Structure formats: C-alpha cells, structure tokens
C-alpha cells in the first residue's frame, strides 16, 4: 500500500513539474554580501512591477559589510500575496559558499540558474538547471575589470528575462530608473542585461515559470517603510531630528535628511530644520525632549538597543509631560541579537520603558502607507497627549520594498496640542501647568520664550504639584499619578483604533495581529478557509487598546494572537486589559527566527492548535 502511494505521488509530481506556472512563484537570489547584487535585484523587482504584476521583495542579509552569504527573495503573486514565501521556485546561485545548501533545500521541479564553475547540476536530478558562464559574459561589457563583479549580477537579470518571459523594454526602463537616468551607468548595465538575455535565448528553452502582464500596479509606487516614515515626518512638520545610527533604523533618518535638505530650505538657503547626530541614544532622546520642551516637533529613530538606553529619559518625558516621537525599527534581540533580522520583540520593554509607574502609547504601522501616516500623526498624538509616543516598526516593513498606492496628502492640520500664548496669558493672568482644566487629564503648557512674566514653569522629574513646584506631599503625588492615568484613558480614545480586516459569517475563531505580520495573516486566512477554518481578523494599530479589542475577544471562542517574538508580548498586554474570564480564550502563534513571517507558519500553527 505504502509503496503504491509513493509511486502515485511521484507520478503526480513529475506531471506537475511540466505544467506552466503563471505569476505565482518566488525567486531567490543567493549572492555574497557586498557584491553589489542589490541593484540587479531591484531591477528584477521593478521589471515585474512595470509589467503590472503584484510583486514584493525581501532582503535577507547578514550583519556584515562584505563576504557573508545574502539572499534576496522576490515573490510574484497574481493573487496579490506579498508575505515571504517559504520555498522559492527559482534559485539564482551566485555564491559558492551557500550554493550547495541552497540547491538541496529546493522543492523538486524548481529552477536553478547557476554560475558555471559551481557545477551544481551534479547535485540533483529533479531540478531544472541553467548553467551560465557569468564571468565570460560580463567581461566584454565591463568598461574596466573592477566592474565585472558588479555586472555579473546584471547578467542574471537578462538570463531570467528570457527564462521567465520578462519584457526587456521594461527591464531597460527599470535599469534606467535604478541608476537615476545616469546615461553611462544605464548603458553599461543594459548591455550586461542584454548579454545575459541573448545568451539565454541562444542556449535555453524558456522555463515553465512565467510572468504574464497584468494591470495591478497602475499609479502605484515601490517604497520601503523607513523612506515612507521619513516622508511622514516631513509632512508632519518635523523640525528637529537628533539621532544615533543603528541598524535597521539608520535609513529612516538618512532618507529624512535628504528630504529636509530638498524641501525645507528657504530662498536664502537657510534651514527650517536641524538634524543632530548625537553621541549616543541617551543624548538623542535627551535632545528630543529638550527640543519638544522648547516647542519643536522633534523625533528620533532607533532600534532595540537604543530603546534600552532611552529608558531613564523616557520616564522623565512621561512624568514631566514632554512630547516626543521615537521610531523603533525593531530587530532581533536580546542584546546585539541579529541586527539585520526582523522581530516584534520590543513591545513590553517599550510599553513600560523606565522605572516607576510609566506607560507609553505605541503605534503599530502595518504597511508603508501607515508608516507615512503615523510619521505625521505620531507628532499630533505626542503634542496632544504631552508624552513620548513610540512608533513600533520593524526591519521587514522598514527596510524591504513594498508596492503601495501613492500616499494621500494630509487633510487635517497639525495638532500642536494645548499651548498657551502670550495673548492667552494676558487674558488668563496665570496658569497651573499640571492642572486638569478640561477633564481629559492634560494640562496646558507654555513654551520657553513666551513673552509674559507668568509664562515660565519648572519642568522637572522630581515630585511636583499642579503648579510644577517641587512637592513631596503624598496628596500631590497621588493627584499627579491619577491624572496621568486619566490621560492614559484619553490616549485610549484618540490613538488609531484596531481595524476589522476580515470577517467571516459565524466565525468562532478570532485572529489578532499587527505590524508586518499583517500580510502573512491575510494570506493565511485564505489558506485556513481552504482547510475549513473560518476566522475573523482584527488588526491592532496602537497601544493602549480601545474597547473594540475586548469586544472582539468577547465575540469569539478562541482568539489567536500572532506576533514575532518568543514571549507572546502582545498577548501579555492584551491580558492586562481584559476581564479575567476572557483570558483563557487567548492563544499564541509565535514566530521569532528573524525571517519575515510567512503565511504557512500561521496556518500550520492554527490548524495544529485547532486540532487539539
């Protein structure tokens, strides 16, 4: 019995291996870090994008400048799935070090384009191999020998153009875009792509995997979350940006610097912004608080280790009630961890960053569009709430390229919060900095430089009364802490609420996810449906949660909280917020290997837990 099953299965497989696959596969390019493959991979991604086909790219790179293996995956999906796919169908093997392992890991029927000297075709007989002499092809088109190494990469784009039926004119457009229209660079790279294309035409049949033109990308953009966040900050009116470089957040500030230099310099060449490279993250957050105290929209961007260093100052910001915007582009911890790998592991440490009773709003962008949106509104919230606000992005959203609709121009004006002017003080006479005048837990502040003898107040981390005067009186302390808690309830109401992304009639199961997990969850919902599991899906966009989260949990028998950390950190936060009898409904899907979450992992975990 068993042997017949096996034989039948193999038969099915070999038939499948001849069937054409259109717009539904994944390419993995394996190169050596620092070999300049990023340009070639971007060109591949953009060529498919220009053909109107849904596409996504993920860079799985090491913490290294040059020498270690690196992989770039491109997913082509007619259904619009953009999460990482577990198994690639096309491997481009350029790295001798990882090639054999990469080939062994492939599913039968996959395609391998490899560098001829590697002789990979001897490893397996259930794959389709294409041997390409990259050095020989790149040599003649390289204007100087040192460029040969770079151009080898562009050669494989041409080879793939033939094998996968990519349109060469679109590829040439993509190359021109990649090199910002620079004539010489474009010419050389187009020549390299053509050499690869012509070699493939002359020597290979096309593969059964193909890209066929669609019309899904009209008007769309390709962008990474860090660049989107920088754009949000620009249109959110950021003025002061102190920062300390750390992967994977550095490109956020670097993008922002470029934008500010271009769009925020007046006619005389004077800046309406300041970027300060601080000596460390302690100084960066200190400068952010100092600048916000003086009225500026100041932000910084960092990752886990930087968050740890910002703990003490964040407590000061909470207690002295100074606005601040901090982007945490999360990477794998603890400690140095895996600096170039993605995670959602800073939730608990950030939510309660600092000593004493402290807690901080966190925004949870799930897309590049939300990176743009929260890039602006985080300032509104910070100034309205007069408190540090964290935006919890991650490496997957922040550094990978995503296809998106263009970002809409903001309609709402900047909300600068409760600030009293000289004229206000002329009218009022005086004010009490920490008095809850409006019943929302938020007092009024003045800015240094306000020309009124009663404008000044004393910002301090030590105990204070409503007038910001030093006080150790127990009733003053309790009054303050209780008001801060009341302000937390205001935050609950005004932070972005959760989104019911999917609802199935009569579903007993609920799924809660957030951030970059969103895309794998969307795909998993379809997979689950195929397996007979219907689920509703609520996507969180901020902490603290509003009432919709508890209501969602109450409306389901079991709720799976999907997150990219070991300790179910979001589930722990939810637990603190719901009725004790509801807690037993919560289950976890945890993913923490540093790679972006894939749908299959979510589906498998839920199916397994549902079977129990």
């Amino acid at each position, binding site marked *: 019995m068993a042997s017949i099953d096996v034989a039948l299965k193999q038969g099915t497989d070999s038939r499948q291996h001849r069937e054409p696959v259109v717009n539904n596969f994944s390419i993995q390019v394996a190169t050596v870090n620092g070999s300049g493959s990023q340009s070639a991979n971007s060109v591949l991604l953009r060529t498919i994008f220009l053909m109107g086909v849904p596409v996504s790219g993920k860079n799985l790179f090491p913490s290294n400048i040059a020498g270690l293996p690196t992989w770039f995956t491109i997913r082509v999906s007619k259904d619009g799935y953009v999460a990482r796919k577990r198994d690639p169908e096309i491997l481009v093997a350029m790295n001798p070090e990882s090639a054999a392992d990469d080939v062994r890991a492939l599913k039968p029927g996959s395609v391998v384009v490899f560098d001829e000297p590697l002789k990979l075709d001897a490893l397996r007989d259930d794959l389709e191999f294409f041997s390409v002499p990259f050095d020989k092809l790149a040599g003649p088109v390289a204007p100087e020998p040192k460029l040969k190494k770079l151009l080898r990469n562009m050669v494989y784009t041409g080879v793939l153009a033939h094998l996968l039926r990519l349109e060469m004119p679109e590829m040439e457009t993509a190359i021109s875009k990649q090199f910002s229209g620079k004539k010489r660079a474009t010419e050389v790279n187009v020549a390299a792509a053509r050499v690869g294309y012509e070699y493939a035409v002359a020597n290979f049949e096309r593969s059964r995997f193909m890209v066929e033109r669609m019309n899904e990308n009209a008007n*769309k*953009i*390709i962008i990474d979350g860090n660049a989107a966040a920088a*754009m949000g900050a*620009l*249109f*959110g*009116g950021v*003025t*002061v940006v*102190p920062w300390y470089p750390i992967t994977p957040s550095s490109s956020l500030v670097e993008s922002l610097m470029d934008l500010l230099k271009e*769009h*925020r310099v*007046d006619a005389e*060449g*004077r*800046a*309406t*912004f*300041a970027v*300060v490279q*601080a*000596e*460390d993250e302690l*100084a*960066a957050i*200190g*400068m*952010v*608080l*100092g*600048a*916000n*105290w*003086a*009225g*500026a*929209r*100041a932000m910084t961007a960092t990752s886990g280790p930087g968050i740890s260093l910002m703990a*003490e*100052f964040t407590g000061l910001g909470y207690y*002295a009630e100074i606005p601040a915007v901090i982007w945490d582009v999360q990477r794998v911890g603890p400690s140095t961890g895996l600096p170039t790998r993605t995670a959602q592991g800073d939730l608990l440490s950030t939510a309660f960053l600092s000593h004493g009773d402290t807690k901080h709003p966190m925004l949870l962008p799930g897309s590049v569009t939300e990176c743009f949106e929260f890039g602006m509104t985080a300032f509104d919230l910070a100034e309205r709430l007069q408190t540090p606000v964290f935006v919890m992005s991650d490496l997957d959203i922040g550094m990978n390229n995503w296809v998106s609709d*263009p*970002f809409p*121009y903001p309609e709402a004006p*900047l909300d600068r919060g409760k600030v009293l002017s000289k004229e206000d003080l002329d009218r009022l006479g005086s004010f009490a900095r920490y008095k809850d005048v409006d019943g929302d837990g938020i007092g009024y502040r*003045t*800015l*240094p*430089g306000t*020309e009124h*003898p009663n*404008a*000044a*107040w*004393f*910002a*301090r*981390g030590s105990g204070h009364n409503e007038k910001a*005067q030093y006080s150790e009186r127990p009733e003053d302390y309790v009054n303050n802490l209780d008001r801060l808690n009341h302000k937390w309830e205001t935050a609950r109401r005004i932070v972005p609420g959760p989104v019911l992304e999917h609802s199935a009639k009569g579903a007993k199961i609920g799924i809660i996810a957030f951030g970059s997990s969103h895309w794998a969850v969307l795909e998993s919902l379809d997979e689950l449906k195929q397996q007979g599991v219907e689920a509703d899906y609520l996507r969180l966009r901020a902490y603290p949660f509003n009432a919709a989260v508890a209501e969602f949990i109450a409306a389901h028998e079991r709720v799976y909280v999907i997150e990219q950390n070991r300790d179910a950190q979001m589930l722990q936060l939810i637990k603190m917020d719901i009725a004790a009898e509801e807690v037993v409904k919560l289950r976890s899907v945890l993913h923490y290997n540093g790679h972006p979450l894939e749908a299959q992992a979510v589906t498998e975990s839920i199916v397994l837990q549902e079977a129990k």
Partner: protein
Amino acid sequence: MATTPAVKTNHIGLSVIDYRGSKSTLCAGCGHNAISERIIDAFYEMGIEPEHVAKVSGIGCSSKTPAYFLSRAHSFNSVHGRMPAIATGAAVANHKMLYIGVSGDGDTASIGMGQFAHLMRRNLPLIYIIEDNGVYGLTKGQFSATADIGSRLKTGTINELPAIDTCALAIELGATFVARSFSGDKKQLAALLKAAIAHNGTVLLDVISPCVTFNDHEGSTKSYKFMKDHEEPLQDINFVPSFEEIDVEYEPGSGVDITLHDGSKMHLTKLEEDFNPTKRIEALTRLAEAREKNEVLTGLFYLNPGLPSFTDRLNLVDHPLGTLPQSVTRPSKEVLDGIMEEYR
C-alpha cells in the same frame, strides 16, 4: 508726605527682584547660594529679559539651584548627567534664547562626562556652570572625580585617584570660553558671569564651591580655608558691557582687550607678561603648571569669540524652529506628488 524711594532698575527697567528665584533649600552657607546670587546680579546688570533665558540642569545639589534664581525664566531640571542633551535640543529648537546650565562635579565629571565632552565639542551656545565641591552632597559625601588626589573625606578615606580638570578638558574639546572662579570671590565671579552672558558659544565656568557639610574641613582641597591659601588668580577681570560707559582703570600696556560678539569688551589684566588667553596651548600649560604646584588657578584661561557656535553652523532661519507655522513646516501637495512620482 513721604515719597516712595525710586526702585533701582537696570536699563530695561527691571529691578533686581525680577531676577530672583524661590528660597534656597540648600545648606546655610553653601557656596552654591553665593553663585546663585552672582547669577542674579549678572543678569540684572546686563539687563537681560528673564523671559529670554532658559535654565537647564542635571541632578544634584547644584542642579537644584536654577529654582533659586530667575523664576521668570523657563527651567528644565532633567536627569543625572544629561543636562547637555536637554540644552542641545532646546538651543536648536529655539536659538533666540540665552541658555544657562548648572551642573555639579559629579553630574559633569562622572555620570555626565560623555555629554559634557560632546557639548564642549559642539560649542553649543550655553553658559555651563560647574558648581564644583569635589564631593557628592545629596548622597552624603562620596568623592567625585574632581576631588584632588590626596584629599580626605570626613570619614578619613583618602582619594587616591587624580582629579579630572574640567577646564583643561573643555579647552581641549572645543569650548570657546573657559574659566575658573571661586564662589566666595564676588568680584571675579560677577565679571566672568557678565562676560559669559555676552559670549556666543560654549562657556565653561568651573566655580569651586566648598560644601559646608561634607567637604569643608582640614584635609579637603576644596574647603574655604584651602582655597583662601591656594587660590591664584590669573588676571584681574573687569567686564564692561557695551551699553555702559567704558571707564576702566588699568595700566596701559599691561592688558589684553577682547571684543565679544555683542560688541562688549573684556579687559584682562595679565599677571604674567607672556600669558595670552587666546592661546590654547598656553592656557593648558598654565593649568598643568598650577596643578603641579598644587595651586588653584582662577580667571579666564581661554577665549575664542570668533568661532561660530553650534546653532550658527546649522544655518537656521531667523524664527525659532519650534514655533514655525505649518505653512513653513508642511510642504505642499505638489511636493508630495513630485516625491510619489520618483517612486513610481
């Protein structure tokens, strides 16, 4: 009918009361209180509007003192050793204000050394005062890193590590006005403070300020008695703000005139023929020599009024960044559309 005597005012019409703060909670006789008094006098005499001043500090006895002067000025009492970061952010957000930072020797030379170094390096426009008593007062008398080698605590513990000379460091790192004084030397401290107010760039003013409770006894090198016996003023300083009639007595040929950025002049009477406070190397040499001789050299060691400050270098618009209107800080829809096009 008795007439009310006219209240004495400065040239902007404010009386000294307008520069006072709340009552000090430090120990009676603390050198820090004398420094607060001199700060009040200096800002009053210079006629600076208190609303144009922002006070920043870290943590410690010294860092409490901004509450005791200029209560009409905004103030930020931050965390231990991190006053420079708060000051830097604020100075960038509003470069039209005058910033005064108060720190201590623990707050600066131990926990805050990193931020101190980088603030000096940036030449941030800030008067950075170290109220220096060589001891941790608030935690009841541990040595700080400016305690001199060989000095003894009340408990009998001897300090076996060399002191950090914050003035020498500041000169090395890039501060453009570096001086040392003594809290009990009213005349010198007042003159230095007024000159500091006129300076554009980082002022590092290390003021030896004996701790009456923990570090004012036989064996301490920062006691009143030690300072009286070992203080060696480098110059007699007369500071003449530009709005006052210049009327200074000095021997022709014995002084160096230095014009500060606001046009006011500082006149230094040299004690040594060959000392020139505009030369870094000479300043460092004099500090090193004084240290060898176990003397506390006071006076203005180094001054470079010509260097652009940190906020000058940022080439900012005139209006403070913090209060720029949305029409300036949010680019137009056309700009966004243009950027979107780049990403297509």
